[in-house]
């Protein structure tokens, strides 16, 4: 009986030692306030950071092994020197923090648009990530996105092999500025908190200035259709998405203002065709020929006849990597400028479209 009691005591003391870091930092640390991002939180305690993402907590420290006050999901020694990224959306943060040389591996190299990344230095680790290739990079950090199934998408296998994987949930953010605040997330790992804050503050300042300019000077708000018709169903982004929020801030109204999921019969669009001013398909079309090849009935749409169709295919590499999906949502200030330039060009006469282009008929080669 005494032996059982002793074992119980040992187990209990073990549990006390292994107190979850989330709880410990909440009690003893100080929270670093984030303005817009909701999908991660940060606490600090004597130059140690604890970042929580999707029920995982990462202890960032200059010597993480010496920190034994709580048990995190993962210990990371900062600054990280060798990083593997599994999404192109992490590249703008790495580039703006001037840490391009730290990137040693990527899931599908041909889709990287950023010119500042030396693709020859990268090992293609594939997606789902091949554990052997990831191990060969000798990375001290792998940044992966929160997957629907960690097992199916290979992240669980990396964790089993003790590969230091941190999850990123920037794509789940709702506020247009929230994704840009994930620059701070990378700032902590590179021990460049101040630089990341400075980048974010500049983005926020520029964003607010454009926003107030639109608020003051826009009297008529054009109606905008986003998405395209597939099999008789119009599919587009949710009215709650950060893109549609940006579109609204740019002084325009979305065609489906109250829909959380847009998969509507094409007829619901057709009956209001004359009210629509602009169309942003957000797909891979480069010209009106491709648009009409998809469905020649588009030629009767008033906004197609007026060539008021803008698509996010202005910056596409020869391999098909589109910088819009890589950078635009990390730079909401520039994306907002693009949208304002489309809907109210007089407000930004000198701005040149970054990611969007006005679709026209292609010239025969």
């Amino acid at each position, binding site marked *: 009986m005494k032996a059982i009691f002793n074992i119980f005591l040992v187990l209990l003391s073990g549990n006390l030692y292994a107190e979850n870091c989330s709880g410990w930092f909440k009690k003893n640390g100080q929270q670093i306030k984030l303005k817009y991002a909701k999908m991660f939180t940060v606490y600090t305690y004597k130059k140690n950071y604890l970042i929580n993402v999707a029920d995982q907590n990462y202890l960032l420290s200059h010597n993480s092994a010496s920190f034994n006050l709580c048990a995190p999901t993962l210990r990371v020694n900062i600054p990280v020197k060798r990083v593997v990224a599994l999404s192109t959306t992490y590249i703008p943060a790495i580039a703006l923090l001037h840490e391009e040389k730290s990137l040693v591996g990527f899931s599908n190299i041909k889709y990287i648009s950023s010119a500042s990344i030396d693709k020859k230095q990268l090992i293609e680790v594939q997606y789902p990530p091949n554990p052997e290739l990831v191990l060969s990079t000798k990375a001290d950090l792998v940044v992966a996105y929160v997957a629907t199934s960690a097992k199916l998408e290979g992240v669980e296998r990396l964790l089993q092999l003790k590969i230091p994987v941190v999850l990123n949930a920037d794509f789940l953010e709702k506020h247009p500025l929230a994704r840009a605040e994930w620059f701070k997330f990378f700032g902590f790992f590179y021990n460049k908190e101040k630089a990341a804050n400075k980048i974010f503050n500049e983005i926020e300042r520029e964003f607010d200035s454009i926003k107030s300019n639109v608020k003051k000077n826009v009297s008529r708000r054009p109606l905008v259709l986003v998405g395209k018709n597939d099999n008789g169903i119009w599919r587009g982004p949710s009215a709650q998405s950060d893109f549609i929020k940006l579109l609204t801030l740019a002084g325009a109204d979305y065609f489906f203002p109250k829909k959380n999921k847009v998969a*509507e019969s094409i007829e619901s669009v057709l009956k209001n065709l004359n009210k629509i001013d602009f169309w942003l398909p957000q797909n891979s079309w480069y010209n009106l020929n491709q648009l009409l090849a998809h469905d020649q009935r588009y030629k009767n749409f008033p906004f197609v006849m007026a060539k008021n169709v803008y698509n996010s295919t202005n910056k596409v590499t020869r391999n098909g990597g589109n910088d819009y999906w890589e950078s635009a949502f990390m730079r909401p200030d520039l994306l907002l400028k693009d949208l304002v330039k489309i809907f109210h060009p007089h407000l930004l006469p000198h701005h040149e479209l970054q990611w969007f282009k006005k679709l026209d008929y292609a010239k025969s080669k």
Partner: protein
Amino acid sequence: MLGTFCFLLFFVLLSIGPVGISLSEIFKLFTNQSELSATSSMIFWDYRLPKVIVAILGGAALAVSGLLMQTFFQNPLAGPYVLGVQSGAALGVACWTLLLTPISHLLSPSLQSFGVTFASILGSSFTLSVLLLVSFRMPNKLIILIFGLLFAQVSGGIINICISLSNAQALKSFMLWSLGSFQQVAGNDLIIFSAVIMLGIFATVMIAKPLNLLLLGDEYAKTLGLKSKKTNYSIIFLVSILSGTVTAFCGPIGFLGIITPHVARKFLRTNNHYILIPAVALLGAMVAMTAEVFAGLNSAIAIPLNAILGLMGVPFIMVFLWRGRQNEVVF
């Protein structure tokens, strides 16, 4: 009776949709007496009518292809898929959508315009050529069947490679194509589609006599004067053209081709192809239109055509076969 059902479904399908166009207005439209608004008129002539025409012809083509395959192989499980033509079309579309779409701006505008349809026709024509070559060299139906199935496997493997190399956007496009739809064909495409399908069905009626002879068995048919090689080539060619065209324009549409000939035989209790071909065509059109009616009933939920066909058709057929007498299915 089938004709009457088809006629009724034709008008019901034309009247269903988020924009209200009543049956009486439709009748007036056909007699040039109606004055619909420009929008309603566009919805009717550019969207609803082409959709119904494509459903009728697509359904008929797949059903007739299924009948041809079941007669050719004398096997009730045969359908338009077994020759691998649809797999070939899917392979063409996968290569185009998953590998070429991201760099389509590097292609000439004329090639961009052909797009998916061109890739699909190329894929199905390639399979057809291989099949005809095999049937010239080895006039054994079993070997043709095995080649068709092997080709489908190879296509599936290559499609999987394309999927693993593609980006999320291209993958979504391919997935949407693979769900099948009668709603994407219009204008010049509709003219080409209609002409090919009608010619194909007409040509099938022209070989009804050899098809009837085939049911007696190859050897006996030969003694009755059947030119079996010529008939075989004709069947392979027609199935490839009919099912390949439907796949090229509407995506891979399952279920219809296998099951419709069974229902027609059950109803009509005959194996005479002079009767079966038009009946199967009408029944195929009817099933396709019914699926579209179900799809149009609730505009708030987008249900893919293939899902409707499977959910609607399989339980019905199971009950139908369960209650019927097994020995009435003749092969």
